[in-house]
């Protein structure tokens, strides 16, 4: 019992947590399609449905890292297809900037990813998730995770 408990805890530490902000009109539907089509992709992704990727404030992403998320995916409509016309223009600018900013902060920029996935691109969604999960696994758990004491011990 005790042994099992420890093993479980270790697993939890090693497990990668990915948070995905999905735009309601495209990528969320794309994710749905991937599910309906029974495409295989790692299930350990927490998704947050947003009305438009333009509503994803950089604050949310910093907060996600603070809460121990290892990687953040932002996925929305292709440029030109945003249902609010130019919401994803702002996303494109913000994410491009934020990636470099994360690097300055000491968080690998590869932990943030922006993708355009339409409602018809179930296969693309599945492959993005597969690929991103691999990428984050290679990087390892986030240095900001509370179960990792490294940063605290300076």
């Amino acid at each position, binding site marked *: 019992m005790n042994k099992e408990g420890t093993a479980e805890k270790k697993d939890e530490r090693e497990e990668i947590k990915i948070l995905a902000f999905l735009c309601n009109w495209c990528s969320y539907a794309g994710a749905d399609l991937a599910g309906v089509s029974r495409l295989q992709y790692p299930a350990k992704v927490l998704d947050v449905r947003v009305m438009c990727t333009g509503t994803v404030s*950089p*604050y949310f992403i*910093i*907060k996600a*890292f*603070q809460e121990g998320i290892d990687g953040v995916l932002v996925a929305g409509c292709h*440029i030109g297809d945003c249902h609010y016309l*130019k919401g994803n*223009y*702002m996303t*494109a*600018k*913000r994410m*491009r*900037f*934020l990636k*470099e*900013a994360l*690097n*300055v*902060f*000491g*968080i*690998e920029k590869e932990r943030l990813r922006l993708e355009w996935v339409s409602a018809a691109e179930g296969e693309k969604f599945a492959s993005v998730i597969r690929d991103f999960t691999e990428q984050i696994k290679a990087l390892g758990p986030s*240095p*900001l995770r509370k179960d990792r004491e490294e*940063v*605290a011990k*300076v």
Partner: protein
Amino acid sequence: MSDILQKLKEIADGKVDAFLLVVQEDGVSLPQLIPIDEMDQIDHKELSDLRYPLVKIVEEIQERFPNARIGLLVRGCEYRALIELSKYSQINLDKLVLVGRACERNTVEKCACLYPYPYGLENVVGEENPGIEADPKLVEIEGLDVSEKLRYWASQFEKCIKCYGCRNICPLCYCKECSLENPGLVVPGEVPPTLPAFHFLRALDMAGRCVECGLCEEVCPAGIPLRSLYRALNKIMEDQFGYKPGHNLDERSPFIFLGETSDVEHLI
């Protein structure tokens, strides 16, 4: 000193209702608002060298008395702050009469200033001194690899006593509701604040807005190199979007407006 005041008086004559100056009295430097009808007082005033967040007072005066015309003496950083604030409709430049003031060499060095001159102003007193080439602290930070950077910031932010002095003194911080006081983002009463929210949120907000005056760093009781962090982000802003806060009245931060001007083709 007093020739600077004379010059200001000459230029502003008849165009202002009051002067806002940082003066020295009995060894104490304080901001003073001097109405035009007491203008002869100005002859007896001694101008202070202290850097003071005068711009914040101007914001407040303009909010309460939108028609007041004010005469000001501005350094490079103050002029940039006024320009940047006017883009966010927080300052009305039309109601200000500005006389620039070039910073002396020792001030430039003490402030580690890159642009110690109010470029673009018509009337400037003093000789233009070159700014420093690069922020030495930033050069040091840029030499670290990504995990060392996080450890570096963690060791710095651990010293924070959450006095909010950095925000309170910043001329560009004008929001009535501050994200640093949002309990969902920053846990109230927690000292030091958990990494990364407090400082990285502020840093993100200052990107493309910070005019690098260095007041935050100067006021921080914990000696955290705040401006160097904001400078690093301003550098990204310049690389990616060619935007430098406070340098050009006609350009706007790429994060303010969407509209037709948001050219993203090169991002895709």
